[in-house]
Structures are given as structure tokens and as C-alpha cells.
């Protein structure tokens, strides 16, 4: 979009995007400090935890030394951070293998789930959002408003429970447990992942449709739409030819923002369906108090969240003609 504008405008936008990128990186750094500090508050320490109650003081001290726990916290933070950045966030306490290995077996599954959910959710949300905006104040709009408003507040596990009852208990179409492995064919994978995708989509669609509606309605109140209306342009034409080009950036912004709801939703949905993704891994890490694994998972989720926010802000910057024309 910036290409169409003057070169000075493009430069101004680039500077803004650069600043936004730098501030995201700074935030990520601060987030890593926060997560590290909270993880250090754990009563008792990892060495004691790993060896159990029966270990002698010497054994614990030896392991503490081996794990580097006897060093001051800032030193440990720096070595953890450099490890994270270079792709080696330490040793998982429970699995007994490097955290990077545990995560790399799970991360692709979660990314695939997120991608498929987005693939389902985006078109449906667009249709609902635009549809209810065009019908603003009408019966359809009010019905959609009430139903999306309710869906936003429904816990993910209720959606999941009802989906299981319908599709695997009553209709027996789909397995209630999703298993993903390398040997599975695409068809098998999709059958297993259908319900996690469905549940996540429902939660995300509600958010996304509400924000899309708001973005479209914001454009509808502008004078150029009234002008087109007075000119006698058909409503569908107004939406497609006049409103959409202007609303596309706010809509992309809304999509990025609401996709961040996936991160929280995945925690519940992956667990209930036993989907081998990153979120269920993180829940296991909390249960077993596997701090190195937990810290790494939390950082990945925060990074994903910040990337989505960055995308949202960058589209807003690119779409703002005042910034481009400066």
C-alpha cells in the first residue's frame, strides 16, 4: 500500500514501523524479565524438586552447582536469555531432554491448528460482521449481536463438551480425542483435529465478527458513503466498491487482534481434546512445575501475541493516509 504513495510518505511510514518494531522487541525483553522473576519466586528450588525429599544436602548442592543455580539471579537471567535466543532454553526437568526438543515436537502441531482455525474463522467472521453491519439496527443485526455477545462469554469447555456430545456421542462422526502423529494421513489428521478447530473457531469468530462489524460501521458513517447512497449506488455495491477498500485495514487490524484470543482458547481446547500442541504442553509443565519448559512456552506465547499486535499496528500505520501523505 505504501508503494502507491509518495516516497517521503513511504519513508515516514517506514520510520514509524521501525519504531513500533523496536518497541515490540523492548517489550518482549521486559516480558522475559517478568517471567524469569516470577519463575524464581517458586518456593524451594529446581534441584530440590528434581531430587526429591530423600536427597542429601551434598547431592542437592552438587546438582545446584551443575544447574548453575548457585549463581546470582542476573547471571542466570543472562545465560537463560542468551540460551533462549540461540535456541537452547535449557533442560526440561521432567522429560529429561532439552526443552528445544520437547517444544519442536509440539510447536508445528499448534501452528497447524492455529492456521486451520484462522482459515475457517476469517471468512465466516467476515460474512457475519459485514452482514450485520449492512443490516444495522435490523432484526438480523440484533440477533447476531446477541449471539456473538453470548459466545464471547461462553467458556471454551462448554463449547467443547457440546461438540463432543453432538459429533462423537450422538452422531459418532468424529473421535473425541485428537491424535496427531507423523504417520497419519491428512484425512485422519483432519478427522481428529476437526473438533478442536471447530471449538476454537467458534470462540474466535464471535470476537472477530464483532470487531469487523464495528470497523465497517465506522466507515458507513463517513460522508463518502452518504454521497454514494445519494448518488443511487446499490447497497451491495457501496459495501464492496466503496466501503471495503477503506475498511480493509481496520478489518485486518481486528483479525490480528482477535486471533490473539486463540492463544488463551488453545490452552483449554488442546487439553480437553488431548491435542499434542504447545498449549497442552504448557499446562503439563505447570502441573509438574517444570520451570525451564514453562518459561520457554510462556515466551513463545508472548512472542506470538506481540507479533499479532505488531501486525495489527503496522496495518493501521500503512492504512493511515495522513501518515503516507506527510
Amino acid at each position, binding site marked *: 500500500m505504501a508503494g502507491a504513495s509518495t516516497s517521503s510518505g513511504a519513508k515516514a511510514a517506514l520510520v514509524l514501523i521501525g519504531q513500533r518494531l523496536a518497541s515490540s522487541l523492548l*517489550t518482549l525483553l*521486559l*516480558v522475559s524479565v*517478568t*517471567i524469569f522473576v*516470577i*519463575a524464581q*519466586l*517458586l518456593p524451594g528450588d529446581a534441584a530440590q524438586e528434581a531430587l526429591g525429599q530423600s536427597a542429601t544436602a551434598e547431592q542437592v548442592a552438587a546438582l545446584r552447582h551443575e544447574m548453575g543455580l548457585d549463581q546470582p539471579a542476573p547471571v542466570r537471567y543472562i545465560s537463560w536469555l542468551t540460551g533462549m535466543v540461540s535456541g537452547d532454553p535449557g533442560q526440561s526437568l521432567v522429560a529429561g531432554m532439552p526443552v528445544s526438543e520437547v517444544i519442536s515436537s509440539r510447536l508445528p502441531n499448534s501452528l497447524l491448528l492455529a492456521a486451520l482455525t484462522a482459515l475457517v474463522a476469517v471468512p465466516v467472521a467476515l460474512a457475519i460482521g459485514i452482514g450485520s453491519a449492512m443490516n444495522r439496527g435490523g432484526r438480523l443485526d440484533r440477533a447476531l*449481536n*446477541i449471539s456473538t*455477545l*453470548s459466545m*464471547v*462469554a*461462553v*467458556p*471454551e*469447555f*462448554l463449547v467443547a*463438551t*457440546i461438540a*463432543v*456430545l453432538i459429533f462423537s*456421542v*450422538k452422531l459418532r462422526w468424529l473421535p*473425541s480425542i485428537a491424535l496427531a502423529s507423523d504417520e497419519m494421513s491428512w484425512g485422519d489428521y483432519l478427522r481428529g483435529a476437526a473438533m478442536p478447530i471447530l471449538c476454537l473457531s467458534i470462540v474466535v469468530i464471535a470476537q472477530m465478527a464483532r470487531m469487523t462489524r464495528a470497523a465497517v460501521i465506522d466507515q458507513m458513517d463517513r460522508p463518502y458513503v452518504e454521497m454514494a447512497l445519494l448518488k443511487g449506488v446499490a447497497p451491495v455495491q457501496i459495501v464492496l466498491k466503496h466501503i471495503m477498500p477503506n475498511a480493509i485495514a481496520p478489518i485486518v487490524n481486528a483479525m490480528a487482534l482477535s486471533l*490473539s484470543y486463540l*492463544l*488463551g482458547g488453545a*490452552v*483449554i481446547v488442546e*487439553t*480437553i481434546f488431548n491435542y499434542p500442541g504447545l498449549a497442552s504442553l*504448557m*499446562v503439563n*509443565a*505447570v*502441573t509438574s*512445575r517444570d*520451570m525451564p519448559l*514453562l*518459561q520457554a512456552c*510462556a515466551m513463545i*506465547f*508472548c512472542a506470538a*501475541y*506481540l507479533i499479532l*499486535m505488531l501486525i495489527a499496528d503496522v496495518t493501521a500505520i500503512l492504512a493511515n493516509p495522513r501518515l503516507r501523505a506527510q
Partner: protein
Amino acid sequence: MARSIKGAIALPLSGKIGLTLVLFWILAALIGPMLAPYPVGAFVAFDVFDGSSGAHWLGSDYLGRDVLSRLLWGARYTVALAAAAALLASTTGTALALTAAVGGPKVDEPLSRFMDMLISIPSKIFSLVLVAAFGSSLPLLLLIAAITYVPGNYRIARALAVNLAQMDYVQVAKARGEGRFHIAIAEVLPNMIHPLLADFGLRFVFIVLLLSGLSFLGLGVQPPDADLGSLVRENISGLGEGALAILAPAVAIATLTVGVNLLIDALPGRGKRK
């Protein structure tokens, strides 16, 4: 009182439904346990995962306990814990926001940067890290839920307070020589109460969903205590038979959160604001 009754009558239908659901759950949390037909931990049914019957309106759970009795007790945990946490989050967030608004850039800048940083940690992820570090006794859960939602409330309250602090009447109060505390409490706060109440409702919904989500994962309220989320978790083995014991508490949570959402959405003045 008369005004609020008139307000309730003026609500659209969705708002009335919301109000009814909210009142119902407040009542259930207050007196529900007294009405419970059976003791909460007693094994009273012969079968597990029974359907609805005259003796057990909502059937029996995985150990043959009465689901209705457990639900009434669970509702008290869910509503009370979430209300306390939402109150703590809102008062803390608003107090910090007022401090930032009247304290000038030296207070505002670092505080706002810090909150911006906290808000960029997804709330479920943040609370999972907190639970792993602190554990999940009832007071800690309350604290964790409150901490998780302070930044969100701070952001809203600060935006309101900073705007109000620029208003002429506040400038006049400053020129009069009023102290910062007086300006924050007596001049700024009363004018942001309405949006803050709506925000309180939203925080409450988020916290109910967060806490029941944690309980559902086994990381929230620990046995023998049980909130609505724990009830869903403990009966998960009944999913295959479509047991009422798993549906009832899940639907209970949904009616509570949807009710609050509908009520907030229908409140007057909300549609006019952008």
C-alpha cells in the same frame, strides 16, 4: 432505588434477561447452599451419572453425589471468588490510574510503561506462570486473578482519568490549592464511576472464565473445595454418556457470564459511546 427500578424497566429484552440471570446467580451464591437438598460431599444416589429424577433434580455425579447440591455450593465459590478478585483488580487498577493522572508525567510514564508490558502477556499464560510459581490455594487464586486483570482496568481508568484531569473544573480545583488526593478522589473519581462499573462487570466475566478454566485444568480450586469449573472437570468421564453432571455446571457458568455480558451491553449510554 426508584430510579434503578425505572432503569430496569427501560432495559431492552436482552438486558432484562441479563439482569434476571445476574440476580439469580447472586441469590444462588448467597442462599443457595442453604437450600441444597443434600450435604455437599454425601454419597446419596445408588447410581453414578444418573439422569434427572424427583430425588435428584440434576442427577448424580461420578461418585453418586447430588449434582444440584454440589452446583449450589460451587456457584458460591465461583461468584464470590470472581467478585472479590474483580473488586480487587478494579480498585487497584483505578487507584494506580488516579495516581498516574494526578501525579504528572514522572509517575505516569514509568507506571504506564510497566502496565503496557504486563498487558502484552496473554492473561491465561500469565496466570499459568503465576499458578506454577505460587500454587493455587483460594487466597492465592484470588490474588492471581486480580493481578492478571489489573493492567486492563488500569488502561481504561487511566484513559478516563487523564481526560478528566484536563477539564476546567479540575484545573480550577488545582488553582484553588486542593491537594492531589482530594483532586483524585473528590473531583476525578466520581465522574468516571459509570464506565468503571461496566468495566468491573467485564473483569468479572473474564475472571469467572479464567478461574473456571484453571479449575477445569485442575490448576484452580483444589478438592475438597469445588467451584463450577472443578465440577466440570471431576465429571469429565461422564462425557461419553452425555451425563447431566458435566453439562449442568458448564451451562451454569455460561448463564452467569452471558447474563453479565447482556446486562452490560444493554446499560444506557453504552450504545452512544464509540
